């Protein structure tokens, strides 16, 4: 602010902040490692290939936009925010994907959703989720084919084979693409229920695991672990994840009790799809989330309820991304009306 009358260096406090944006972002990236490791372990190299492609392209777009916008490249390029956006976008799309899918996604996330709105700190929408929504609407076919767990396929692709698929769309001979993929649990459920089958029949399918989707349930538990660690490290507060998961569990439990043949059980809602990742890593994106304690609870709960509504009655198998984007619209008003009571404002001691 050029209007400051004095040098901020001569103004208290004189203890420099030990926190930094880069440190915050790095911690978030570390917290994603258990989930991503399990993801690679159970589903093959696809995720890693996508992460490499997405991070490279996200950093490239970030660099380009910083140059165009005449912002200090050194300060912003390695703040870690572009890398997180890239990783979250990759986790939202299928692991076996053509190379241009993460590139187009990163273009939209970094160039449109982030920099055209003013860059770090100014974006109205979560860039990864906005990009995912664009991909989902533009390339529905590519986005609906998900990898089957390695345990359920005859041949698992090597790293090189995965790269070759990504860039040249070629698979080893005698291997059919369909043999590597399966529907996701939420997708499967949705189409089968649409065919009039009961959940009891549907849940015999191999896409169901012990707790959620086969394989994905463990990946989600990995994300849960990382998320809890983030709360412990005070990088995120408990309000949004807890509110979101409680709201999702509550409404799915209610519907499950009413009609167990049409509505999945709460555990499936929590551990299937993007609920855990969304609750701890996406909905907690500081820039686009509410900042007050009460606001965060409402914001989180809203995402939980909308996620369920979209899954149960909407046009897409999962609803976390749209729920996050929709609740993002409410943030200014939430922040305004949920400002905490100032110290002494509710003091019940009158003057005498």
């Amino acid at each position: 602010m050029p209007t400051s009358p004095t040098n901020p260096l001569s103004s208290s406090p004189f203890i420099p902040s030990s926190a930094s944006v880069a440190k915050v972002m790095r911690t978030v990236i570390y917290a994603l490692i258990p989930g991503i490791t399990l993801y690679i372990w159970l589903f093959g190299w696809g995720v890693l290939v996508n992460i490499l492609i997405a991070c490279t392209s996200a950093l490239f777009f970030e660099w380009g936009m910083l140059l165009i916008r005449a912002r200090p490249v050194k300060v912003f390029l390695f703040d870690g925010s572009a890398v997180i956006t890239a990783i979250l976008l990759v986790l939202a799309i299928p692991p076996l994907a053509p190379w241009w899918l993460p590139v187009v996604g990163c273009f939209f996330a970094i160039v449109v959703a982030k920099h055209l709105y003013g860059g770090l700190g100014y974006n109205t929408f979560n860039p990864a989720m906005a990009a995912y929504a664009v991909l989902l609407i533009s390339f529905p076919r590519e986005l609906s084919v998900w990898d089957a767990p390695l345990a359920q396929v005859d041949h698992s692709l090597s790293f090189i084979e995965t790269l070759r698929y990504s860039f040249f769309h070629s698979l080893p001979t005698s291997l059919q693409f369909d043999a590597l993929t399966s529907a996701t649990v939420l997708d499967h459920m949705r189409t089968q229920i649409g065919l009039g089958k009961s959940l009891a029949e549907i849940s015999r399918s191999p896409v169901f695991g012990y707790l959620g989707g086969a394989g994905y349930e463990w990946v989600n538990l990995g994300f849960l672990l990382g998320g809890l660690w983030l709360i412990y490290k005070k990088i995120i507060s408990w309000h949004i994840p807890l509110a979101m998961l409680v709201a999702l569990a509550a409404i799915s439990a209610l519907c499950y009790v009413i009609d167990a043949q049409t509505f999945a059980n709460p555990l499936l809602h929590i551990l299937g799809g993007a609920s855990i990742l969304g609750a701890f890593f996406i909905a907690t994106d500081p820039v686009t989330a509410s900042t007050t304690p009460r606001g965060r609870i409402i914001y989180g709960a809203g995402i939980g309820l909308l996620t369920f509504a979209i899954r149960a009655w909407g046009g897409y198998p999962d609803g976390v991304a749209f729920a996050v984007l929709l609740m993002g619209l409410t943030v200014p008003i939430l922040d305004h009306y949920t400002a905490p009571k100032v110290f002494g404002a509710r003091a019940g001691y009158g003057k005498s």
Partner: protein
Amino acid sequence: MKKLWRFRGGVKLAGFKQLADASYINSLPIPARLILPLRQHIGDSTEPLVAIGDKVYKGQLLASSSAFISAPVHASSSGVVINIDKYPVPHQSGLAELCVVIETDGADTWHPDILPEPHPEQLSADECRKRIRQAGIVGLGGAVFPSAAKLKPTRAIDTLIVNGVECEPYITCDDALMQARPEAILRGILQLRRLLQPVDCLIAVEDNKPEAIKALQDALDKLTVAGINGVNSIQVVPIPTVFPAGGEKQLIKVLTGKEVPQHGLPYEVGIVCLNVGTTAAVYDAIYDGRPLVSRVMTVTGAQVQQPANFEVLLGTPVEHILAAAGGVRSADHQLIMGGPMMGVTLPHSQLPIVKATNCLLVSDAPQSSAALPCIRCGACASACPMQLLPQQLYWHARGKAFDKLAHYHLADCIECGCCAVVCPAKIPLVHYFRFAKTEKQEHEIKARFADQSRVRTQAREARLERVKREQEARKAARKAARQQKQASTDEATPVIPPQVSNG
């Protein structure tokens, strides 16, 4: 163990308290010159009672005021008044204040009227208050509010809180005082107890000062054994070390669970809060008859050779004290009065020590680091001990949206610095808030001026309008009169009645 409460927010800070050892207090040679500002307190300034050339004794009254919220100033050593003029003083505003300058004679002779009080316990409450006021005692924790103004509250006081928390990093002067003069602190409290009649007297000390806690407890046990009246109402309470636990409102919350109402004062919840240094000064004033002419202060920081605590005469130039502390290590330093969280920078070392100076922090020159945009992480809001939303205040301070700043309670910000030290984007938040507060004041002054101008303009327009109407009315009246006159002369002519329209 006393039940304690918690205040929301706050930060844990590295203490750096071992730098200035609190187990001893150094004395200083008398400086050649003392510069005594006539306002070293919150409230009205004082009028000088001496003239240039006057010989003054140590403890002699130099200036006073009849205002309720004010505190007199005394000569802190014997000598001659050589000037009364405006000098720069250590204060946030950076403005110059009227000061009395004394050239000391080195004898440090007390004024002959200053004698110990033979029967301090028998003084009436009003006499005690008068003496505390006359001694120029103000809050020595840094707020420098005239203490006497706190001692006649309009409602019953349940708790007297004596603040030995000292939550700012680096500072150890209260710690040193508690270790050196625990009995003076306790006897001062007993005097204050007679004035305020509280049920409890709580001495709060952060648990990072075990020696001070022990010293106070030992002194308390000694007075208890001696059977001094009222001692059993005093309690030494160790509290957890969290900044800013020593803030008045935060400390009251920690000790009693009560929140001082927004815009209110502690006495409204039945509490009076004083610093340990203040209670020791009360002891000196009542028992020894001595006004406030010196204080204990810490000289510390990475850039000072021999950090230590000093008993310093008020008005001593900063450079004199720095020299006594072995000097500074390099020219590349920053001089701060107070602690690293809430202190103010001093432009140079010729400024005098005042009643508010609890610490002189000589730190490394600051490194400038570019602030990033706010990422709205909310760390500042979690750290704010007043439960404000610093990130919202920041946006609106930048936009100078004064109505929004009021909506988010800018006025309640105590500028403790917690938000800024946790900000990952390294935004100098407090700097913005301080700036917004002064801007807001200016804005309000302008707005008031504009209002007054508008009222004046409207009044003027109304007046002109009225004058015009009156002129027209007079003109019409004259015209009517003229017509009537003419009509009466033309009586022969039939008058055509005016057409009456129903429309």
